[in-house]
């Protein structure tokens, strides 16, 4: 779930991948700058957060680190549900882990949010002499599947911060606010934030269109939106259908445009 302050965005990011691929090591390198040769396995899940400055806004990544073993697969949806971004990690010295990564990609394509920003991380890039998965193969796979790809090393820190920054930059700045929110949450959010009590569905496009014009920046001028919505507020309440219509519109309008 993602929320927003004036120049501040929160976005949920989930790390998926085979056990021992280095998910926890990546996140610990990124969040705490540390690396343990024998990072203990993750039981259940772990949660971290780290704030990044992107342009003139800050993005707080709320990072879920999950257990890798197939046995715990059934818990994964709990963690990737509502995520704005995912890093799928494999170990470049282990072909099985790359195959497992592909399965995660498939699962997210089926189950995940269509607007999710997904990165593929080939970790343990420092172990060049043990490499089993070439960067070319992984890169080609990433291109085919609309992922962005980097090889990383939690041990040497190579590309670790970069991959998280790249995600923050690619987050669709507006839709991320509401990714994974059920329509009612979205409405509640708007009502609470804008202090709008009642409004008319048909006119909802207007405030968001004005926000969309700012798309070049991450900055979101909530005050302006608030003023506009206040001006638009009418006596009708939104019905569920309208509610859904609104969400569809939001998804369409705020899809990342490359």
């Amino acid at each position, binding site marked *: 779930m993602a929320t927003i302050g004036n120049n501040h965005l929160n976005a949920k990011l989930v790390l998926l991948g085979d*056990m*021992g691929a280095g998910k926890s090591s990546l996140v610990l390198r990124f969040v705490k700058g540390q690396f343990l040769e*024998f*990072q*203990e*396995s993750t*039981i*259940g*899940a*772990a*949660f*971290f*957060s780290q704030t990044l400055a992107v342009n003139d806004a800050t993005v707080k990544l*709320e990072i*879920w680190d999950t*257990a*890798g*073993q*197939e*046995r*715990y697969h*059934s*818990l994964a949806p*709990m963690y990737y549900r509502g995520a704005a971004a995912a890093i799928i990690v494999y170990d470049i010295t282990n072909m*099985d882990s790359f195959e497992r990564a592909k399965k995660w990609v498939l699962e997210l394509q089926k189950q995940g949010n269509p607007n999710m920003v997904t990165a593929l991380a080939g970790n343990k890039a420092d172990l060049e002499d043990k490499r089993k998965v070439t960067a070319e193969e992984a890169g080609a796979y990433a291109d085919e599947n609309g992922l962005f790809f980097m090889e990383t090393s939690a041990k040497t820190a190579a590309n670790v911060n970069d991959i998280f920054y790249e995600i923050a930059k690619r987050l669709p700045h507006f839709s991320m606010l509401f990714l994974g929110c059920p329509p009612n949450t979205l409405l509640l959010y708007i009502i609470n934030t804008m202090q709008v009590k009642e409004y008319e569905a048909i006119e909802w496009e207007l405030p968001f269109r004005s926000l969309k014009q700012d798309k070049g920046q991450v900055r979101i001028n909530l005050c302006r939106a608030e003023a506009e919505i206040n001006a638009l507020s009418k006596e009708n309440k939104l019905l569920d259908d309208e509610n859904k219509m609104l969400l569809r519109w939001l998804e369409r309008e705020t899809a990342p445009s490359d």
Partner: protein
Amino acid sequence: MHEPEFHDLSDDSDYAASQQQGLGGSVFGSDPGMTSGFNEREGSEVVYSKDNVTIHPTQYGSERISGRLRLVKQGPSLFMTWVPYKPSPDGADFLGNNSNSALSEKDRNLYTITPVPLSDVRSVRRHTPTLGWQYMIVVLSSGLAFPPLYFYSGGLREFLATLKQHVHIVRSADDANVFLVNDFQDPLQRSLSSLELPRALSVVNGVSSKDLASSVPSFENSERLNGRTYYVNPNTSEYSRRHKHKSHDPARDISLQVLEKFSLVTKFARDTTSHIFRESQSNSFDSYERKQQKQSPELIPAISTPSEEQSHSNDGVVEPDPLEFDKINLVWGNPRQPPLSSDEWAALLDSEGRIMDSNALRKRIFYGGVEFNLRKEVWKFLLGYHAYESTDAEREYLASIKKSEYETIKSQWQSISPAQAKRFTKFRERKGLIEKDVVRTDRSISYFDGDDNPKVALLHDILLTYSFYNFDLGYCQGMSDLLSPILFVMEDESEAFWCFVSLMERLGPNFNRDQNGMHSQLFALSKLVELLDAPLHNYLRQADCLNYFFCFRWILIQFKREFEYEKIMRLWEVLWTHYLSEHFHLYICVAILKKYRKKIMGEQMDFDTLLKFINELSGRIDLDGIIRDAEALCICAGENGAACIPPGTPPSMPIETDTGLYSSQPEDL
């Protein structure tokens, strides 16, 4: 608060006296023929029969009485009867529960429902919780009720349907789950009010509830009440005396307060003789208390239930801030003792090395743990690898047998050649999982540190051998954590393996692919928190955290990641005694959550924040204090607590089926 009413219940002497006067209706006549007009010899027809209908008589989850519920038609009359099963020779009923074995013949007779004519029944209240078993409470015309009957194998709907065919039943207009039998002029109010605790007491005591309410007991009485209800040592009773009337008295915690009363009633009911039981159906109290626990929101208005407190606060009525209760630490269990010493241990053994009083040993370890050098020996008993009644010689013999058995299983995977392994994906993958995990298990402990440490190889060999011993379950992340301290203590490959096997007999279901072992524990935990800390429960509900996944790691590997190495060995030996409860680990969970409840609620933690907070508690929990808190909570919860925990919940022995304990699925490694 409704203190006076609570204290009324403590007035044991009045209560006992009233029993002797024979006040209160009776259906438990010693001669069923006389009481109910039921005659076995005359032609009768069984119109409904259901096996595995169960009552939960005591505080221990394992003690459940299963039996057969029947409706018998004789002439124009219909009778209901419930007869508990006789224990089978091995003490297990067909469900695999160790249910009826612990109960004496006397207890069985006590709970048996001799044929009761439906004309004596006022109403049947149906309970169909979303999770857990359906049960019903049968209320008699006298206003008394039988203990809740749990339909372990379903059949409640069928029961009601059958009833409908034979007697006139009216569904209550006010509550769709109440079915009124033979009670037309008397509206629901009376049947419901008869379920209220104080009112029911008045039925039994033959005095009005008003009288009861006016006889506010003295301060001394309430102390005595505590003395009867709890395991109270001088320290704790001194503690409660000092804090009795302070606003932050933990006893003022609403949930606990309610509980306190109920465990009193239950214990008192149990303590009375079976004679009194038969004469007055004190066991009806059981049903009140259970009903309270199961569905406090809608019933028993006379007692301030947790949920009622909640709704009051919501209505803007000024209530004590629930967060205030935390100001005094919940440390009120027994003070921890020094660990069991070699001398004490020697004194517990007879000349041939049998443990003379295993219960005393378990109790001693529960309160103090074991000195390190004894662990190697004692853990084998706690884990069930050695029998308490075995002799030194028998154990020595067993060890040698088991050693060769271990070597046999180990040789199964050792003999797989590289060429064979190439064509044995499952083996390769499983071996790969273990290799990935053992190198990162407790490497900061000196026993396992350094390059090419042979102990790490031992972990690997034992785990791989286990995955052949229990191929269906295989290897799961977390197992290396469970094995590590066992190997550290045993310092012997085969002995560590068999101890691990014993532990996995109980914890194996934690690792089931469908997560059902974990789900049942997390579910039981949520029920326990609801029982023991209603405000926290309500908070977690509104924060959408009731799946309790933030406690997943605690339960999966028995707090292994939460305490330092020495402490975890202490905690495990305490848990393994199963002294107060097989599920003491769940009370540890509740105790920790209660300790941090103020922070959790005060900071309005959502699921993410809560999980992060819980994970970061690692290494910062005071073990002795938490064990004492958990002890107090466990005693307090009594059988209400046990009733929160479904049978078969790990670490109870899993229910065996023909298809094997662990479902093996194609993808499973």
